[in-house]
């Protein structure tokens, strides 16, 4: 009887501890600030948020880059660097998304922060993307490219339809392609 009562007390104590722990965890999950990858500060305050023409520029060896075709279904800018380990970590997911974007007729522009951080022709993803080491400031002044990798997607009317700063999560390519499909219909 005594041992039963002791066992019951222990069980009750364990349950009480579990309730307290679960309560604490629940409260933490509810109130912890969750990082929002859609950076609200992507645009400069002075930017008028109007459609931005694709950036024009030059490669690291001073060759003018091919402009994004006006017949393109849309275009993407990936701000990335060979010196950024986040960009290397992101390579696999970006490669998958880039392939889907290319299938949709999107042209891809890779902007590097510094001409010394340019990708070799083999290192570019996708290989057909246009790399710019020197970029038109008229385009740069609209967007706050403060971290690599950053990905911006624009529709054929040059409106920004999706943006992501940082490495892509598993859900991001799906989300991005939803936006691409949505804006194709609108």
């Amino acid at each position, binding site marked *: 009887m005594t041992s039963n009562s002791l066992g019951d007390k222990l069980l009750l104590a364990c349950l009480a501890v579990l309730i307290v722990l*679960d309560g604490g965890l629940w409260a933490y999950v509810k109130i912890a600030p969750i990082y929002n990858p859609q950076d609200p500060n992507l645009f*400069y305050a002075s930017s008028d948020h109007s459609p931005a023409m694709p950036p024009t*520029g030059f490669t690291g060896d001073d060759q003018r880059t091919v402009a994004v075709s006006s017949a393109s279904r849309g275009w993407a800018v990936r701000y990335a660097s060979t010196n950024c380990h986040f960009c290397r970590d992101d390579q696999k997911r970006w490669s998958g998304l880039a392939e889907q974007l290319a299938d949709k007729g999107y042209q891809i522009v890779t902007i590097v922060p510094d*001409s010394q951080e340019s990708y070799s022709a083999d290192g570019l993803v996708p290989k057909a993307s246009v790399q710019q*080491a*020197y970029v038109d400031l*008229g385009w740069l002044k609209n967007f706050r*490219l*403060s*971290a690599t990798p950053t990905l911006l997607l624009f529709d054929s009317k040059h409106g920004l339809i999706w943006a992501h700063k940082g490495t892509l999560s598993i859900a991001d390519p799906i989300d991005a392609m939803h936006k691409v499909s949505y804006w194709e219909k609108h």
Partner: protein
Amino acid sequence: MLLGVVLLYCGFRLCENALAIRSDQNWSRANLATEQKPPFTAAKGINVYGKPVSVDIFSKDHPLGVFLLRGRQLEQDLTFWRSVSDLVVKKGLTLVAYCDGLSCSDGVRKLASPPPFEVIEYGEAVSSQALLNDDREGNCLKLVDSKKRPKKVGWRSAESTPVKVAMELNAHDK
């Protein structure tokens, strides 16, 4: 007993969520650590005539001054910097301007007498954004050492004059 199992299961799921949040927060911190205003390290790019420009060697005796020209007030900006240039160039300072867009670069190309300094139309993203940020605060930049942050010199305020800016750019910094 059943309640205990349920509580353990809930605890396990909540732990998973809490760890995912911590991981996101840590990642965010790591990522945001690089988000301070990017430094200006060298004046490199393509000028308004399509020629490469690279000024990456500067020192206390031969500093570099960089500033932004705004297309919508190009004439005013050029007048100011032509005056500054007259006062600083003989003292070993190199001036390099950046154009803030097509209206500025078109305007410079149309000038009968080109400005006495290089005007970059296409710049490196980090340096260009650093300069764009500083211009929003009304500053130009003086560089004496590529490993140190540039010195900000205010020039867009009403009180600034070419003489004052030239004196600040010429001043020997400690």
